């Protein structure tokens, strides 16, 4: 799926749909979601005070483990030292935060930017644990950014909201009145329709 291969905004009056598309496009750019969204369809019916949106995300991004960002090796068996050599610095702050929480600030030495040294009793077990330690989950921040996008894209008064996130399908409905079941169904149908394009 290409980024934003389908991008449709429908409204009762077609020109107003086009105007709204530019708003949605600006918000997608602002939240850097362009690469994550594969297909998106928005339907706005002002006369019903209704806003519906369905998004198909492009394949889920994998979690980042320590082994993805560097290597973990035992460097001194006598003093029981483990060295983490970082290759990708991007997630270093998150990694440090987790290590500090577990070993304490004094337990993690950082002689230079890309080297972390720890001491542990059970070396092999600890190395294995560290290699598989999950440092960041892009999926999680993606979800919060998606929700943010939905809130920003909806007309402000539409505060009665429904959303569901099922794997890579995000469905959103908002209104200012009581949310009808058929509207949620309509949003789900839009999502199904988008998936069928595959």
């Amino acid at each position, binding site marked *: 799926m290409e980024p934003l291969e389908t991008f449709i905004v429908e409204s009762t009056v077609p*020109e*107003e749909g086009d*105007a709204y598309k530019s*708003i949605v496009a600006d918000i997608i750019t*602002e939240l850097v979601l362009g690469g994550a969204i594969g297909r998106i369809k928005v339907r706005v019916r*002002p006369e019903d*005070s209704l806003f519906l949106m369905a998004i198909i995300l492009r394949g889920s991004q994998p979690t980042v483990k320590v082994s993805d960002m560097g290597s973990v090796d035992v460097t001194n068996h006598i003093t029981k030292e483990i060295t983490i050599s970082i290759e990708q610095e991007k997630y270093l702050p998150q990694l440090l935060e987790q290590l500090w929480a577990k070993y304490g600030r004094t337990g993690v030495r950082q002689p230079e930017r890309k080297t972390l040294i720890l001491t542990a009793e059970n070396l092999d077990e600890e190395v294995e644990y560290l290699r598989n330690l999950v440092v960041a989950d892009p999926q999680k921040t993606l979800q919060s950014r998606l929700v943010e996008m939905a809130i*920003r894209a909806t*007309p*402000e008064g539409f505060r009665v909201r429904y959303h569901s996130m099922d794997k890579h399908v995000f469905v959103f409905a908002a209104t200012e009145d009581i949310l009808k079941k058929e509207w949620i169904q309509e949003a789900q149908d839009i999502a199904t329709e988008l998936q069928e394009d595959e």
Partner: protein
Amino acid sequence: MAAVLEPYIYVGGIHQHTLITELLEDLGGYLIQKVPAATEVTLVMLIPREDVHLIEELGKKLLGKLERAPLTGTEIAVVSPTLASHHLPHSACDVAEFMRRGGANTNMIGLARGMGRRVSLSDNYERKLINEHDLAVFSFGTFADCIKNKKPKLLEGVTVPKIVAGGPLNVKTEEVAGADLYVGGIGRVAHRMRKPGELSSLDVLLEKVVEVVEKMREDLAKDPLAVLPPRVMKEIHEQIPEIFDVFSPAPVTLQLDGLRVKLPYDEFHERVENLEFDEGVRLSDMAVITKSRMKNYILVKIKRESEVGFTA
């Protein structure tokens, strides 16, 4: 008879700009606002009609630019349904920017509960605050249905001329209940308005607002004010020196039929009421002085000649 004053904005270097202000004073014009920005200065002023060419010549010598600013001496409220990122800063602030280019002083007003269709409301306090201005520009959204059927209730209770800016181009003024004018092409956007189409819509809006203001000035001329607001401003500058300690960009803001003095009401209202004029009258004889709903300011609304019986 008092000279006819023409509104102009001068933009030029700060070096020797006092020559302009001195000449203006000699000619009997009024400096309304001075905004220095680094090496540039913007002077908003009222110049007697016959003497405009003198200022223009001097301005040319100083390599500055003199432009007519038809909205000078007006205070315009730019009203947005709420303060949320959905409505601000884009489009509403661009509207305010264009009004200021016309010489107006603008105030942005974000309603507390103006969002939505069925649920949108305006508060009594907000309506009174808007009514303190010369006119109000309402910045609405993209959908014709909302602008025609739901949003006009925000215009209710606003007695000053109401200009509605919205997205759709095919809405007519008569379809927006209560609006004095509708201008399209300025709907909700999530970026700064800078594309040619957007900018020309803002130009159209400015043009229309100028028309409305000219009409208001004409109406005012039929039964003129007892004293010109710029003259009151001059007297305030001379008799209440504390005004120079006010940090606001426009310590005295002119309106078509009055002015807003940005000094605390309780402390200063008596001195404003007792402002003396050469003719031997006080301001309180010619104007109604009340506490403004904006902060703790003083609002002066000047009475008409027919009511007072003389002009100062």
